[in-house]
């Protein structure tokens, strides 16, 4: 018998629940009012996000409907859709939008393709120790400044740079500065942001599932395709949101390695930073906003939004 029967029934004085303290009363009150509890939890963050962020965005979008008086430089608050029409119909904006979208998509695809095998190796093949070292190795470059890394790529890709030196024995050439260089550099910059969620996603796939699939006769490829991929799909999408949206808004990298090209970010930047034309900048900013919203709407169903 495991209960010690010789021990007398422990009849200690019952310690009463504490009543009456303010914290206690607060707890009691709150527990009776879950709605209040919820509003206390969400009040501050929603105030922050709603008032700081959404209001700012809304204000920006409204600005797109105004114009800058070129005579005074002041924003004149007369409603007009001229800016938006100009952005939608201007061939410049269409070209740049397509270019930006292409770059962002390519960067995203490249990053996912590179991230998948590495993340898989980290999560499912490497020893726990190696896993830890790999995570550190992936995270560390994040701390070398974005700018420093972009300039490093400028150096790597220059004529006579390391890239040229590495590929010339195989008859290759550095792509020089331009869109390929932009895509390479952006892929590089955002790669850790794509690897990490996919790695986390893969870690959540239990080994037993892989074994079960193998047990049922699934080959490596079919296991990956039928079991692993669907399970980490949200994680992949989550990673893609980073690479896609960060690329979509970038204007510094393309300045450094992009040759003579410009992206949407440059147009926005120039209009607001140099030309003082906030309404036009806001109208241009609508383009990436719409693209991102379309993207988010498309991926929403995968549950990726809970997996960032």
């Amino acid at each position, binding site marked *: 018998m495991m209960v010690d029967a010789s021990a007398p029934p422990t009849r200690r004085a019952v310690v009463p629940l504490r009543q009456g303290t303010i914290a206690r009363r607060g707890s009691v009150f709150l527990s009776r009012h879950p709605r209040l509890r919820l509003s206390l939890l969400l009040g501050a963050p929603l105030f922050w996000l709603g008032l700081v962020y959404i209001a700012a965005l809304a204000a920006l979008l409204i600005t797109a409907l105004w114009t800058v008086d070129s005579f005074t430089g002041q924003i004149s608050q007369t409603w007009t859709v001229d800016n938006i029409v100009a952005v939608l119909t201007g061939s410049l904006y269409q070209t740049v939008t397509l270019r930006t979208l292409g770059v962002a998509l390519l960067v995203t695809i490249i990053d996912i393709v590179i991230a998948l095998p590495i993340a898989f190796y980290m999560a499912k093949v490497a020893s726990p120790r190696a896993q830890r070292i790999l995570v550190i190795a992936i995270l560390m470059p994040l701390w070398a400044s974005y700018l420093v890394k972009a300039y490093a790529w400028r*150096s790597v890709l220059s004529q006579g740079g390391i890239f040229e030196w590495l590929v010339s024995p195989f008859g290759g050439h550095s792509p020089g500065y331009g869109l390929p260089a932009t895509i390479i550099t952006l892929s590089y910059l955002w790669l850790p942001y794509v690897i990490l969620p996919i790695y986390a996603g893969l870690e959540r796939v239990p080994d037993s599932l892989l074994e079960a699939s193998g047990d049922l006769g699934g080959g490596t490829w079919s296991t990956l395709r039928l079991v692993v991929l669907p399970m980490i799909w949200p994680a992949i999408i989550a990673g893609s949101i980073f690479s896609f949206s960060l690329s979509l808004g970038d204007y510094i990298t393309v300045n450094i390695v992009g040759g003579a090209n410009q992206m949407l970010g440059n147009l926005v930047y120039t209009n607001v*930073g140099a030309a*003082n*034309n906030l309404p036009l900048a806001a109208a241009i900013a609508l383009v990436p906003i719409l693209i991102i919203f379309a993207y988010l709407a498309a991926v929403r169903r995968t549950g990726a939004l809970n997996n960032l």
Partner: protein
Amino acid sequence: MKRISARPTSVALTGVAIASVALLLTACGTSQGGGTAAPTTAQTELGDMEGSVSLLAWPGYVEDGSNDPTVDWVSAFEEQTGCTVTSKTYGTSDEAFSLMKTGDYDVVAASGDASLRLVAAGDVAPVNTDLIPNYDGIFDFLKMQSWNSVDGVSYGIPHGYGANLLMYNTEVVTPAPTSWNVVFDKSSDYKGAVTAYDSPISIADAAVYLMAHQPELGITNPYALDKTQLAASVDLFKNQRINIGEYWSDYLKAVQAFETGDTVVGTTWQVIRNSLAEGTPAEVVLPDEGATGWSDTWMIAANAKSPNCAYAWLDYIASPEANAQATEYFGEAPSNAGACDFTVNPDHCASFHAGDADYAAQIWYWSTPIAKCLDGRTDVTCTDYSDWTTAWQEIKG
């Protein structure tokens, strides 16, 4: 480009760029006399030092050794005058303009565009150059110019200036060019290796070229372009665009590109040439057509709390020693003739053509294009800076 080109001179350009706020220039511009709000009388005599002075300047104009211990001309001033310097840097002329409105600053270093706005808004006071002994040493061709005086009243002390030159790779670009045509009409010879300064204000470079090569367009001031003239300039750049390797907006980029050979010809600054690694086969030239350039001005706040220290700073920074330090650090020509004796590099003045009035005369100093033509034409409306911005974006495509 505000941040991309944080180097002061380029930032100064941004300042120009941003000041599409044309009202004040138009209403109170040089041709029409001083702004009504501006104090029209300057201080007549100096009093005791107040013990401190607050400066507002482009990054790097006021260096106290905190970025680089060897770059410091503020400490000497503090020792000499007992005025403790607090300084703040700004990124755009707009920012400078609104910061001056706070009344917290005694002195501001302003670019050609901001300066007149500040005068018109009554934020800066006339400067009695008699109280600034070192003013005598300033090159005459910089004094009382349209960007630092109004109706014959001086509003500040010139700081430094420079030109946007043509640089070329001596091995690739032969014979040595004397005209901008190597980057315009003949740019296809160097396809993929041509560069240009990445800013709408660069359109003035084309206008300068067209002034010489297409006189029928009637351009008399590269910052006063009507629609036809702008279109002609833009066309010139659009033809150049297909041959451009990259645009540059900071001089590190330009230096690297010339050193590696990614770029062989294009606009540049003297300081870029001077920064090239030894042995880089590159030279600069001020082409026959002339060139654009910049010049900045030190001004005193209308309600300065420490006007005496402010005057002391203006005098100090115009002194040959300080002027030499500040302008050499940033790679521009000093405004004080005597500065040339104090540069670390004895050839500094020569390489920047400091004091060369003929050279300086070929420079069209940056001004903000505004609807009211700067060249005095009244029969047409000129294109303003926002038109230029749109045009520049379309050029880049």
